[in-house]
């Protein structure tokens, strides 16, 4: 059965108000290190979920077994759970249909042999320069279908491809990555050159004393920071529960006036038109010229405030999955030129929140950290630990690069920040 056929079967066999999610996806990944592939894995799977609502009592069940008997058992389990659950008085209704703003696009994946060629091309660049390359090429294509008993009927096919590289030369390392819905956009040789150049420049790193430094963060690092803004700020659940740094501050100028942040699926890093509930993703302005403007909603959090969902259900909570930080006017070179004594950061590693409401986070730099003096990159640095309040980092003196890059969570430029707090060095 195809995803839509399964979804229709489940909905037709479910009594009362219900939502059905079906995804049918196949993916594979080639992973390599020291210029050789060490992992070649592939998987096919279905995810089938039904949510049953009976007088504000909700039950959910899921399976990956595509057989009528298993599907009926799943429906029966969800109905039983709904029967015996206490009601959730805050639940109003499943969402109603909205027209999808655009059609999703996808590209069929390369064969494993073609994917091997992509990896081979990247490794060839490393071999030419006497550098060791590690990384992964990943390919995913899926059919996604959401139906509900109120008329939601959202269906789309999506694809995403990524080549991520870490080049190693002695004690230096460099990172590069490309994420796309069309694998033909990946230029493995060019991407390898970027990582290799960074690795060669990183050999024989020095130390700087921890402390406050002005920084330029490449888009790889900025993208990871956006994830923290999304989870701990710009979603209605965090705001309604009092956990968001935005509590009582919507409408206030919290950020540098150069910051405009929107969630815009149509123009996002991997465009897809609807959310977990099948609701069309709307464009939501989160920050406009430094002023906090709003948050994203799913149907549950929206109905609590008498609003409609903005199409940002990530199943258990709303999340702005398509953030775009508007670019500025500076080239990367110009941003670096503004640093009198500063640090250029390629990528962040193992970041984690330390204080959610004050948005203090920690983590380390990785795969290309450089000391900059009087606007010029002087020498590579050992990785540094930072412990930084993100709100204060983005509140003033922010400069933005003029080129947007696709990340895991967002579309972002390079960013220049002041007084970034480095609290330790990575060394034995």
């Amino acid at each position, binding site marked *: 059965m195809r995803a839509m056929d399964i979804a229709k079967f489940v909905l037709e066999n479910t009594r009362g108000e219900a939502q059905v999610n079906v995804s049918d996806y196949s*993916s*594979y*990944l080639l*992973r390599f*290190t020291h210029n*050789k*592939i*060490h*992992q070649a*894995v*592939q*998987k*096919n*799977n*279905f995810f089938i979920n039904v949510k049953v609502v009976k007088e504000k009592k*909700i039950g*959910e*069940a*899921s399976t*990956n*077994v595509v057989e009528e008997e298993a599907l009926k058992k*799943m429906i029966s389990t969800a109905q039983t*759970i709904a029967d*015996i*659950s*206490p009601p*959730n*008085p805050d639940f109003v209704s499943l969402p109603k249909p909205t027209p999808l703003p655009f059609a999703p696009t996808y590209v069929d994946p390369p*064969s494993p*042999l073609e994917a*091997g060629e992509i990896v081979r091309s990247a*490794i060839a660049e490393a071999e030419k320069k006497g550098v060791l390359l*590690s990384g992964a090429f*990943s390919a995913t294509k899926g059919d996604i279908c959401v139906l509900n008993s109120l008329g939601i009927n959202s269906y789309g096919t999506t694809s995403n491809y990524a080549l*991520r590289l870490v080049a190693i030369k002695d004690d230096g390392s460099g990172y590069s990555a490309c994420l796309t819905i069309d694998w033909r956009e990946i230029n493995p040789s060019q991407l390898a050159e970027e990582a290799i150049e960074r690795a060669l420049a990183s050999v024989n790193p020095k130390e700087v004393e921890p402390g406050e430094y002005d920084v330029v963060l490449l888009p790889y690092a900025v993208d990871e920071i956006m994830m923290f803004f999304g989870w701990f700020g710009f979603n209605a659940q965090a705001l309604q*529960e*009092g*956990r968001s*740094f935005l*509590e009582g501050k919507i409408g206030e100028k919290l950020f540098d006036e150069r910051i405009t942040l929107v969630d815009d699926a149509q123009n996002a890093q991997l465009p897809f038109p609807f959310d977990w509930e099948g609701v069309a993703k709307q464009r939501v302005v989160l920050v406009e010229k430094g002023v906090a403007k709003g948050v994203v909603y799913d149907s549950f959090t929206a109905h609590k405030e008498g609003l409609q969902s903005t199409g940002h259900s990530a199943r258990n909570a709303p999340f702005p999955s398509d953030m775009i930080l508007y670019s500025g006017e500076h080239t990367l070179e110009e941003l670096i030129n503004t640093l009198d004594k500063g640090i250029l950061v390629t990528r962040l*590693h*193992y970041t*984690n*929140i*330390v*204080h*959610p*409401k*004050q948005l*203090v986070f*920690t983590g*380390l730099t*990785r795969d290309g950290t450089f000391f900059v003096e009087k606007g010029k990159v002087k020498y590579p640095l050992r990785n540094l*630990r930072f*412990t930084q*309040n993100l709100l204060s980092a983005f509140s003033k003196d922010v400069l933005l690069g003029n080129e947007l890059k696709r990340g895991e969570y967002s579309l972002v430029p390079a960013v220049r920040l002041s007084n970034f707090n480095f*609290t330790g060095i*990575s*060394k*034995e």
Partner: protein
Amino acid sequence: MQELLKKAIEKALNEGASFADARIVRRKSEEVIVKNGKPERIESNEEAGLGIRVIWKKALGFAATNDLTPEGVRKAGEMAIQMAKGAHKAGHMEVILSEEEVGKGSFTFPYKEDPFDIPLPDKVDYLLECDRLMNVSPKIKVREGILTSIREEKLFASSEGADIEQIITVCGGGISATAVEGEESQQRSYPAFGGNYAQMGWEFVKSLDLHSQAEKIAKEAEALLNASLCPSDERALIIGKSMLGLQIHESCGHPSEADRVFGYETSYAGDTFLTRDKLGNFQYGSPLVNIVADATLPNALGHFEFDDEGVRAQKIELVKEGIFQNYLTSREVAYKLGIKSGGCARAEGYSNLPLIRMTNINLQPGDFSLDELIQETKKGLMIEEYSSWSIDDKRLNFQFAGEIGWLIEDGEIKGMVKNPTYTGITPQFWNSLDAITDESTLFLQGVPNCGKGEPPQAMLVGHQVPYARFQKVRIGVMKR
């Protein structure tokens, strides 16, 4: 089902594989979440499928499918070969597996009360009562409780003749309360951040006795709002329970994974400072430090009879009297090291390739009582439950935080502090250990979601820990 495994393996061998092994995994789980007095999610999940691993011209390929028909598993066998061919063409690591005894047998791990027999309304009511007890103040903005039950049935066969069945049951849960006032928010959890889990039945949830601690943690969360900030200085640090479990997990467990030595995690989670030249001679910690990886520990989440390559569960000394002794290994890496596998190859579900994973990484107890440890501390900080964690890509520079800290002065606990953080460099930190508590203080932590690999896999691992004291630790590194 054994027939399906054989079909997949036969198909791979017919396509030219020199070796194949396959797993069929059936997994069911039930999750009950209650939040702020209302059911947040009550859900039942079932998943089944087959994963097959092949070696073709010394290249490794793996494929997985949810289609458990003869045609589905045949296609999976074919696809695993295709993946190996893709790797072969692009240039691959030569894979040779260590010679091991061929595993056979059927094992059902014991429990007293089947968690799937406990009626769902009883579970909901249990959490609603926790919720009521945590509702001590309007400042408690988020009250949450979770109960999880898992049963996993795993069949394993290989072209070498392995034939293994294992059935595990996992149960556990936890509660948390978050207090909010102005720009301050503080969370307390019990029995640990995210809960605690064991290879047991409903009897484990009963033993947690969540009701007994619900009011206490909520009051602590509220009190933390106005507590002093953790001081910023160097002092003795006493850690126990999940805080010490996390410390071992991140700074001993992960760096001991031998695939990191060979660069298999370089581009993602990183490598390890425990390079091969350190094996058998590196002073990882003080002479009091003895750490084992024990897959034979009953009830712990990392307990099994055979790993996902069919290698028998073992108890391995990672650190003995402070010296680094052994890695966690799989058959592939064991061959490279010229040793037998340590039986640490584990995969999440049916759809993932087995990777080197922790089992139960445990710090052996010492001879102090907890009272003695505190009494003999002039100026210190004690943390029992973690809240935040970060460590570098060599597993050297770490920074961890706890939910609540207790200041110690002249051998007495003097009061709580909020946002207790500490930082250090792994070998320096473990070499500063000067006291460990005795067997009576052991805490068994179950981590249901240890992350590793691409695609990411979540693994069940355990840590059995006493309390330990470390000297001259830098604490208080948070800046607003």
